[in-house]
Every structure is written in structure tokens, then in C-alpha cells.
């Protein structure tokens, strides 16, 4: 649905070059929620703004819904943008317009008639649960309500894709959850493809099907979220389970969805090893429970024990 290929963005600032994106590839499949995770300055915001060409990339191509945006002229690009919704960290609502007026704005841009606008606005406000706030001004709303207006506005053009620029970062935890739940519902019920950027792990954990981890303008790893966590040396897993640095010889075991199997006691019995637990955590990710255990394994048939764990489908990493 969204295809980004070898995207580069270089800013020139008083003769100095700053590389914001150093060649990024991204594939977002139809109907999934794709999260881009990274610290501020990692380039994720630039990446998102390159997807609807709010920023012109220095090189590379962007395609949305089969249309190569980077090849379009200005008028065509404006039309294409009407089919790409976007929500913003600070909502970016028009303070001089009512809630209904804000949602009507993109419809005016598209040239919809007055009657159609009225009908669509009512529908959209119903969808985000703000039907009773149509006549209110943004200044009278809470943060969560403002973001709901933002979402209604973004959906006005029946977009196939929704871009979310840190949409929950300015919200408190409870409101964040309700906005994420709304995004999930829209994703499921409207088949909306969502590309969101965030610096918050719990956003990725809560709603994303796939994720890309960004650092210094590059994608470090990307893929399905559970698959990614089960990959050796995964940065995502390291961020998800903030265990202390392992000492040489420490074993890290990652398991998905099989927390109830008594593998550790089996290993102890079968291979006569001593297991000391150094740390561990269990997380619910994309509806699956994922755990990570840091242990020290001594004595007995250590190598065979590690082999057995790997055979059981667990990710076993031994610190060098």
C-alpha cells in the first residue's frame, strides 16, 4: 500500500549538509498498522512527511496505493493527498472554525457541495464519538477530543491510508489508549492502512502489526512485530525488555506465546544444569504474550541444554 524505496533527504544548512534520511526502504501492506519507532532526531518524522511529500525527498521514490507520488505534478499531487489522511501531534486544527467546520475543511478543498458536506461531517463525527460537539470550538475541547476531530478530518476524503505523526505524544496515558483503540477499530472496520511514527514503545506494542526501528536516518530492522522480536540481536526486543547488559556466558531466552510450557525445569532435569535467573519480563505484544528470560546456565551438559532449548523453538542468545 505504501512503498518507499531508497529514500534520502539531505538538508543544507549554511553550507553544511545534514543527512536526515540515508536511504530508507519501507513496505507497508494493505490493511496493516505499521509503526516506525525511533528517538527524536532518528529521522522518522522526516520519513513520514516524505510519504505525502510535505517534504520533497532529495532522492528515492514514494508510492501510495499504486501511485508514484514522487512523479506527480503539483495539481495531481494535491488530488493524491486528498486520499491520504494525516493526523498530527498538536492536532493542527483551525481555531477559528467549529468542530464541524474543521471536519468540513477537507471536503471544501475537494469541492464537495454544502449538502454533501453536512451529511459527511455528521457521519464522521458520529464515527469518532463527537456528534454532540459539532458546534464547539477546538479551544473548548480536551486533547483527546481534539485528536478525535483530527481523525474525523483525516477520514473525510475516504482515504486508503492514514499517516499519524506522533498523534498520541501530547496526550495522557488514558487518552492515548482510547485514541489507539479508535485507530485499531478504524483499521479493522474500514480496512484503513495506518503508518504511524512514535517514540513510545507502548504504542507499537499496543496496536502495530509491523514495525521499523529507526536510528540516525536509517531503518535498523523492520518486519512483523512478533517475528522481529524472535530474531537474534533484535533491537526491538532489546527496547521492549530493558534487561541489564549481559555478562559473558549469560543466556537470553526469548519465547512467544508458550509461557506455560515447563522448559526450564525440563532442561534442569534432562541435562543436569544449574539455572540461575538474572532477570526477565513478560509483555503482551500484538495480542501475543512474549517473554524474555536472562539466565546463567552452569555445569552438566550445558551445550546440549542450549541446543535443546533452541530445538523447542525458543530464541537462545549467548552473550560473548
Amino acid at each position: 500500500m505504501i512503498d518507499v524505496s531508497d529514500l534520502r533527504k539531505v538538508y543544507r544548512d549554511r553550507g553544511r549538509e545534514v543527512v536526515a534520511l540515508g536511504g530508507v526502504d519501507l513496505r507497508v501492506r494493505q490493511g496493516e498498522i505499521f509503526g516506525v519507532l525511533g528517538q527524536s532526531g532518528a529521522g522518522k518524522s522526516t520519513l513520514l512527511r516524505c510519504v505525502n511529500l510535505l517534504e520533497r525527498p532529495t532522492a528515492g521514490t514514494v508510492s501510495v496505493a499504486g501511485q508514484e507520488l514522487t512523479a506527480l505534478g503539483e495539481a495531481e499531487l494535491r488530488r493524491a493527498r486528498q486520499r491520504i489522511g494525516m493526523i498530527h501531534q498538536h492536532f493542527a486544527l483551525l481555531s477559528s472554525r467549529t468542530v464541524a467546520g474543521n471536519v468540513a475543511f477537507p471536503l471544501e478543498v475537494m469541492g464537495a457541495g454544502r449538502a454533501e458536506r453536512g451529511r459527511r461531517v455528521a457521519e464522521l463525527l458520529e464515527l469518532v464519538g463527537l456528534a454532540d460537539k459539532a458546534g464547539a470550538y477546538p479551544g473548548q475541547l480536551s486533547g483527546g477530543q481534539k485528536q478525535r476531530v483530527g481523525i474525523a478530518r483525516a477520514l473525510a476524503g475516504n482515504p486508503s491510508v492514514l499517516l499519524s505523526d506522533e498523534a498520541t505524544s501530547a496526550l495522557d496515558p488514558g487518552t492515548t489508549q482510547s485514541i489507539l483503540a479508535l485507530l485499531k477499530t478504524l483499521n479493522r472496520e474500514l480496512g484503513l492502512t495506518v503508518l504511524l511514527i512514535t517514540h513510545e514503545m507502548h504504542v507499537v506494542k499496543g496496536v502495530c502489526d509491523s514495525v521499523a526501528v529507526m536510528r540516525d536516518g536509517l531503518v535498523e530492522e523492520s518486519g512483523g512485530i512478533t517475528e522481529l522480536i524472535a530474531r537474534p540481536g533484535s533491537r526491538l526486543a532489546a527496547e521492549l525488555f530493558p534487561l541489564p547488559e549481559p555478562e559473558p556466558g549469560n543466556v537470553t531466552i526469548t519465547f512467544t506465546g508458550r509461557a506455560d510450557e515447563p522448559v526450564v525445569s525440563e532442561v534442569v532435569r534432562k541435562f543436569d544444569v544449574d539455572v540461575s535467573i538474572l532477570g526477565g519480563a513478560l509483555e503482551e505484544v500484538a495480542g501475543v504474550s512474549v517473554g524474555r528470560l536472562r539466565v546463567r546456565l552452569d555445569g552438566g551438559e550445558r551445550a546440549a541444554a542450549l541446543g535443546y532449548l533452541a530445538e523447542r523453538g525458543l530464541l537462545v542468545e549467548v552473550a560473548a
Partner: protein
Amino acid sequence: MTWEEMSPLLWEATGQTAQMVVWSTLFTVLSGLPLGVALVVTDRGGLLPSRPLNAVLGMIVNVGRSLPFIVLMIAVIPLTRLIVGTTIGTFAAVVPLTLGAAPFFARLVETALREVGRDTVQAAQAMGAGRWTIVGKVLLPEARSGLVAGLTVTVVALISYSAMAGVIGGGGLGDLAIRYGYQRFETTLMVVTVIVLIVLVQLVQTLGDAVARRLARR
């Protein structure tokens, strides 16, 4: 001077001042508003960036702002003749008044438009809005409270400028104060004229503040 003697003089002068201010306000808005919009739009990172155009517009505005009004009024006499056909009288004063106030108002428009958040403008771009839609439906409506505040300051400045219009026979309250109050030692008339001017400015400012406050929806 008795009240009966002062009254017609005051009425006439107030009428002339009102005439000069109303007309020049109209022309100031008509020229200053587009100029202010152009300053913002052509600026770096604006909707239609153009360095040379921005530099030229900026210079025009600065030249207009750096001339003392009394000098400007004399300096543009040839232009006034060209436009109005005469160089004396109330209407002749409208030309220099507009030329003096438009650059001033343009800067205030520029400041007000810059107050509109960058992310608001980008949100509109992300929705596929074109430049002129953004100017007309985002920048100007979002800045309307600041624009009204700027207009209020400009009208007050015009009232003050118009007091100098006597120099080119424009009449008005300032002219009355100088001719009778100062040159003929009519202290009472001078005091009354000053009071009328104060009341006028107060009215404009209070009205402008009220409208600006009503329009600010934050």
C-alpha cells in the same frame, strides 16, 4: 469664542477628519493586506517563496515606513495631483495618508499571519489544499483577531496623521487646533479639539479591542 461660534467649526473639522480616516483606512486595507500577505507568502519557507520579490517588497515597505509623515505628504504631491487631480483639500490628503499607513499596516498583517502555526498550514497542505485556499481559508481566518488588532492600531495612527493634513489644506481637527487654538490663542477651542480627538481614539480602540477579543477563539 462662544459655544455657538465653536460648534460649526468643530462639526466641520470632525467631518473632515472622519472622511480622511474612513477613505484612507479603506485604501490602506485594500493595499496593505495584499502586501502583508505577499510578504509572508514570498518569504523563505512560505507558500510561494521568492527571494528577490520578498526583498523588493520588504524594501518598499521599509522606505514607506522610514519617511516622517509630514515629509511624505509633501514629497508625494506630484503623485497626488496625478491621482486626485488636485493637491489640496480633504481628498488630496487621502493619498499621502494611504501611502503612509499601508506599509505600516502591511507589517502588522505580516506579524499577525506569522502567528498562525506552521503545523496548521502544513495540515492544510497535507489535505491537498492549494496556496490560495490556504491563504483564504487558513491564514486570514486564523489570524483575524490579530488582523483586527492591527487595523485598530492603524486607524489610530491615521487619526494622528490626519492632524497634519492641514499643511496641504486637508482640514480636520488637527488643522482646527493649529489655526484657532495655536495661532489665534483660542485656548478653549484647543482644549475641546483635543478632547474630541481623545474620545475618537478611545472609541476606535475600544471597538477594535472588543471585536478582536470576540474573534479570538482560544
